[in-house]
């Protein structure tokens, strides 16, 4: 550190190194990132961390308050709430990755096509997105569940399609700005084909808004999917999905409020983590905010 050249090295040493420094200096991103990393670790190691089987209950130990034996108490079937919440993280990560992955793949492809080709393709795709977005909030997901039925796979499809327009719009907006920039014009003038322009210039330069959206939408997916399960239209019991746990526990709200409050708190924490991370990433990645 005594060498001034070395201390100064990270600054201006390329876009990603520079960006990483900005992210690390952003308190929101660090706080959110910590929550997200912990959450993923819990999901990965749930079987090791859980003191009990999440699906097996002991009827003699129903609706126990938190204690030394059951840190977060037991539910209406005598199952350990802590073990269920930990295993619920696995289901949540699965839903989030699959649904956001689906939305990202379809949305980015549509956004690229709309922004790059333009004209009637743009009109067609964006009007289609308008139609999807005309079903406000959870309604689009509900309509898809109504047609396909409940269950983990359909929740992923419903939550994924629900987010396709968001990704399509972000990618389209980014492509529209980039398309007329000099470096893209130059590439075209040098004879680069559409394929090369899209994958070598447009997509890599759209990564920042895509990363921000991905983090924020991980939060939206969790709220939507757990909302569906809460309504009884998502992942079905006895699965320890957080929304489904909460739904079951409503009947015991007065005698054993912890059974409902804990899975809800888990959802809130993870959603907050992804929102903080997304916000922090936006502040540190958005070129418009750079001095």
């Amino acid at each position, binding site marked *: 550190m005594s060498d001034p050249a070395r201390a100064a090295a990270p600054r201006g040493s390329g876009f990603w190194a520079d960006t990483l420094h900005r992210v690390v200096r952003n308190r929101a991103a660090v706080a959110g990132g910590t929550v997200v990393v912990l959450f993923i670790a819990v999901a990965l190691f749930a079987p090791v961390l859980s003191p009990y089987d999440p699906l097996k209950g002991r009827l003699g130990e129903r609706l126990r308050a938190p204690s030394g034996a059951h840190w977060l108490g037991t539910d209406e079937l005598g199952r350990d709430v802590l073990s269920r919440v930990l295993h619920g993280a696995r289901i949540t990560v699965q839903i989030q990755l699959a649904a956001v992955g689906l939305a990202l793949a379809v949305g980015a492809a549509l956004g690229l096509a709309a922004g790059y080709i333009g004209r009637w393709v743009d009109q067609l795709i964006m*009007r*289609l997105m*308008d*139609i999807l977005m*005309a*079903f*406000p*909030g*959870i*309604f689009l997901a*509900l*309509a898809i*569940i*109504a*047609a*396909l039925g409940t269950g983990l796979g359909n929740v992923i499809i419903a939550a994924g399609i629900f987010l396709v327009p968001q990704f399509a719009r972000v990618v389209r907006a980014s492509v529209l700005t980039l398309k007329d920039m000099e470096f893209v014009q130059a590439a075209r003038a040098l004879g680069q084909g559409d394929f090369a322009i899209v994958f070598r210039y447009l997509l890599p330069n759209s990564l920042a808004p895509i990363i921000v959206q991905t983090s924020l939408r991980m*939060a939206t997916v969790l*709220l939507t999917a*757990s*909302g569906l399960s*809460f*309504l*009884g*239209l998502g992942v079905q019991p006895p699965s320890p999905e957080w*929304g489904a746990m*909460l739904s079951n526990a*409503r009947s015991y*709200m*007065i005698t054993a*409020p912890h059974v*409902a*409050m804990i899975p*809800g*708190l888990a*959802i*809130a924490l993870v*959603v*907050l983590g992804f*929102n*903080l991370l997304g*916000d922090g990433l936006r502040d540190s990645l958005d070129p418009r905010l750079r001095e």
Partner: protein
Amino acid sequence: MIAYITRRLLLIAPVLLGVSIGSFALLQLVPGDPAMILAGQEATEEVLTRIRHEHGLDQPVAIQFLVYLRNAVGGNLGISIQSRQPVATLIAQRFPFTLRLAFLAILVSAALGVVAGIVAATRRNSMLDLAALLGSLVGISLPIFWLGLLMMLVFSVRLQWFPAGGSGTATHLVLPALVLGASSSAVIARMTRASMLEVLRQDYVRTARAKGLREQIVIYRHALKNAMIPILTVFGLEFGYNLGGAVLTETVFSLPGLGRLIVEGIFARDYPVVQGAMLVVATTFVLVNLLTDIAYAFFDPRIRYE
């Protein structure tokens, strides 16, 4: 202005058409024979033939859609499989309640969100600003259904200030409106803050201050008026999200709204009800957004000429 409104109307026409195709397609997407879905699994071939004929299911899909569209425009959304009542009647009974709830939630979020946003923007980087920012992040992160149960536990079960569910009196709507308005408040607070900060940088605000006007007048009479214009469109969007959130809020508080109707319809496989309710909600949302866009153009003439 008239040209702008005409243009906007032309733009929403294909969206409304798409929305009706979407709700029509719902029954087509369900795996299995639509006639059997409408008549039930045990229906005899004779009954199925009659149902197919009655519902026009023996016609080509395009014809079926045109008939569906013509009926929908005329206010005929079909008959509920479960209650045998016209779907339009069921919706007319339930939708006003949901609209009222969503509207109350918007009032809550306007009051909370705008005040928090102004405070945060005028005391930028203070503890209050930080608190408003953190509060709004928490606000958009809480699941509606969990917040509902939490409020119910605290204010109905423990403190007994408000009823825990049901409907009838104004007090029944206090908790649901607060719960539903919470996340909109957060969004509106963030928008108000950003918009105010933008406006406070403008020359006319500097001029107002230079004239020696009191800070209160600068903020409320000069800055806020202009800062509110972009926030208008957010109200339209948030109203739509509140319609969506009402599905969860109505379930938590056992309220007789459209959201419950849809969820019960999905459980009972009562597709005409689900289709009709989806169509009505989406159309309402599109129209509300049209109105907010027109209001936006009315207050900010620059928009009309874009």
